[in-house]
């Protein structure tokens, strides 16, 4: 059927036709569309039967002629109707084409609106809402819904429907679709409500672990080709917007977490000592480097008149936030125990800590190791108790550097466990290093552990330095060994050194020589230069030079037994009142006891055995340490500046 308005378009053509018929003798001409009168000429209508009728079956148009008849006019009228029908048909097609063009343009504008709107939508729910509303409008559908499933979160569903379905039904359809994306027909599933059987489901591809889809309830099941292109555009746009929203969500979440972690780290750092006590004759230093933002390691150093110097270092099992929470609790507990039991001893403090914390630690199946020490700088006595903290390294001049065994149980395991106390009488130069296993258990790229031996060597090599410098050397060595990009575990250490009254270093130099007599002149020369520059007297330089010469000759003869491949590392240090010469070698261990060395009787005309006695005669301090295949010598001479 041709709509009457359309007829308006070719009224002039019909009028021209009608006038021709009137000239030919017809008294009236009428035009009908499916039998309905739509035009007539001349103005007044005659109520008679037409003499001649012609019609076009395709368009349903017919023309009635009055007052004219004859077979020849019938042919003419038929041809005219046929032409008119074709004309109207073309007009109709044109119109419909224009219509769909307008429609496509409308949709493009709508798609643009969708893009613009979803770009601004940062929340997933907003994106889903826009998708459902806009795709309904764009596709002229009954309605639409969208579902997003993110792992470990409740599914997010949004529907835009006149009569909403239960969310469970929509989720069911979505799940069936996720299971079989190729199957877009849910009619056969009885659990799906009948209206949803015809839904067209579309995947919104976001990222592997996130599932998302868009369901469209079409008015008819037929989808035209432009519509399917539009669908593709909608789903592409929807996927991109959804991805953006997910990124936004993650960014917000990670920013929030980061802020929280930074705050937690600040709290933890505040719990660690902010300043280290300065006590005459003791050099103490501690540092904690957590692997993640927060860690389970902790230490504390305090001093007051009642109990001189009290310190502890501990390590909660595990890492990250759980360990950090327990660490804070344990640290606070330990500090208050020290504060309120000032006359107590280390093992009593641990007993109390164990009783206080056992319940909490048992509840989460964790425990904490801790070393508690108390040092009296007047008597040089160290009292300590060690609840499973390892390693604890003790380096003393002229003795082998040893590991103090962690032979007692960690805290948080057994109720009413009684910890034991030990004591050590420390002397000048003694060093106690307590660290968490983040040091010795750091592994290199081959998976080999840093180990206790390397730690001992670094301590021995740096024994003349300050506690802070020893700590820095250890941290640097471990960090280098493990590769700097990733720290596996928290690293915390506490170093205590009995110093006496050491003065700051003026000059310092280090060198390596082979175990050959000729090479020994190099350190002698360097010693001269360093000492002269520091203003040390010629007399004192001569004494130091002879002592160093005797020591190095001894190392060549006895440690390396003449093997010229042996390497001797020599370090020379000049402070305001002391010249310190140190050596390190990998030769034989010295067997005799330094204390028993005496100058041979010259009348016996012995040709050897003078070296060590000469050194002792010249120097104010001579110490020997041996550790893990290495010999460490320290010769020191005091002086007063002129």
């Amino acid at each position, binding site marked *: 059927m041709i709509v009457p308005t359309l007829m308006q378009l070719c009224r002039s053509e019909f009028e021209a036709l009608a006038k021709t018929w009137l000239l030919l003798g017809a008294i009236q001409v009428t035009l009908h569309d499916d039998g309905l009168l739509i035009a007539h000429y001349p103005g007044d209508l005659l109520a008679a039967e037409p003499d001649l009728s012609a019609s076009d079956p395709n368009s349903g148009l017919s023309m009635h002629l009055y007052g004219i008849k004859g077979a020849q006019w019938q042919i003419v009228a038929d041809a005219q109707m046929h032409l008119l029908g074709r004309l109207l048909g073309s007009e109709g097609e044109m119109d419909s084409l224009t219509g769909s063009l307008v429609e496509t343009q409308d949709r493009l504008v709508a798609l643009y609106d969708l893009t613009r709107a979803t770009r601004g939508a940062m929340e997933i729910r907003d994106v889903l809402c826009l998708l459902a509303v806009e795709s309904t409008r764009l596709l002229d559908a009954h309605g639409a819904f969208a579902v997003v499933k993110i792992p470990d979160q409740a599914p997010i569903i949004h529907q835009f429907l006149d009569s909403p379905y239960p969310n469970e039904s929509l989720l069911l359809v979505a799940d069936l679709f996720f299971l079989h994306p190729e199957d877009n027909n849910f009619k056969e599933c009885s659990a799906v409500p009948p209206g949803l059987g015809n839904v067209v489901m579309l995947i919104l591809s976001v990222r592997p672990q996130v599932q998302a889809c868009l369901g469209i309830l079409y008015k008819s099941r037929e989808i035209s080709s432009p519509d399917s292109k539009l669908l593709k555009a909608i789903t592409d746009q929807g996927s991109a917007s959804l991805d953006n929203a997910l990124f936004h969500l993650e960014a917000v979440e990670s920013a929030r977490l980061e802020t929280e972690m930074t705050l937690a780290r600040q709290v933890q750092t505040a719990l660690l000592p902010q300043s280290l006590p300065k006590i005459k004759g003791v050099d103490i230093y501690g540092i904690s480097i957590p692997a993640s933002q927060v860690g389970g390691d902790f230490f504390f150093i305090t001093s007051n008149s009642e109990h001189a110097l009290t310190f502890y270092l501990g390590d909660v099992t595990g890492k990250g936030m759980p360990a950090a929470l327990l660490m804070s609790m344990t640290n606070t507990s330990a500090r208050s125990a020290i504060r309120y039991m000032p006359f107590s001893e280390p093992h009593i403090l641990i007993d109390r800590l164990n009783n206080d914390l056992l319940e909490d630690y048992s509840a989460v199946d964790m425990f904490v190791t801790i070393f508690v020490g108390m040092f009296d700088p007047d008597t040089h006595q160290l009292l300590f108790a060690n609840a499973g903290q390892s390693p604890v390294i003790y380096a003393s001049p002229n003795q082998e550097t040893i590991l103090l065994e962690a032979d007692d149980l960690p805290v948080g395991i057994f109720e009413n466990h009684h910890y034991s106390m030990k004591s050590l009488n420390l002397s000048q130069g003694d060093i106690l290093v307590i660290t968490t296993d983040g040091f010795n258990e750091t592994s290199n790229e081959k998976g080999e552990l840093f180990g206790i031996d390397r730690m001992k060597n670094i301590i021995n090599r740096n024994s003349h330095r300050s506690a802070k410098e020893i700590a820095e050397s250890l941290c640097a060595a471990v960090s280098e060994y493990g590769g700097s990009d990733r720290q596996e575990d928290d690293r915390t250490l506490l170093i205590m050194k009995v110093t006496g009254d050491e003065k700051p270093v003026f000059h310092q130099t280090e060198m390596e020589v082979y175990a050959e007599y000729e090479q020994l002149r190099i350190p002698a020369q360097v010693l001269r230069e360093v000492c002269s520059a520091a203003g040390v007297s010629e007399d004192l330089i001569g004494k130091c030079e002879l002592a160093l*010469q005797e020591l190095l000759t001894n190392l*060549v003869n006895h440690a390396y037994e003449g093997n010229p491949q042996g390497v001797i590392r020599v370090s020379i240090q000049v402070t305001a009142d002391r010249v310190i010469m140190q050596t390190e070698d990998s030769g034989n261990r010295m067997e005799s006891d330094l204390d028993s060395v005496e100058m041979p009787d010259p009348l016996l005309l012995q040709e050897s055995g003078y070296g060590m006695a000469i050194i002792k005669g*010249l120097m104010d301090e001579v110490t020997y340490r041996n550790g893990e295949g290495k010999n460490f010598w320290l010769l020191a001479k005091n002086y007063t500046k002129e």
Partner: protein
Amino acid sequence: MAVEIKTVEYSIKIIVIALKGRLDAFEAPALRKQCDAYLSQNIAHFVFDLSELMMLDSAGLAVLVSVLKHARQADGDVRLIWPKEETASRILKLTKFDQVFVSIEPSQIIPKGF
């Protein structure tokens, strides 16, 4: 009565070894080798002129002691012209060899007033 003349010829060979610079573990073996050569020729009188010596260590001292020991066994002796430098004489005092070696002046190498 004709005088009876009995002539005995005494000849003492004294080796004077003047040392300059450092006599340390590196230089000692060369000196020892040279002294051993003299000792093997039954020479037993040595004077070590240490006046210009800059440094002496126990390895150098050991050579002097070794020569002294062998010289005494052959009824000889070793005398020292004392070092000017403390860096060279220090070890002699420290080991008390200053009380073992006879110290002489350069003019006393050949006894005067004989």
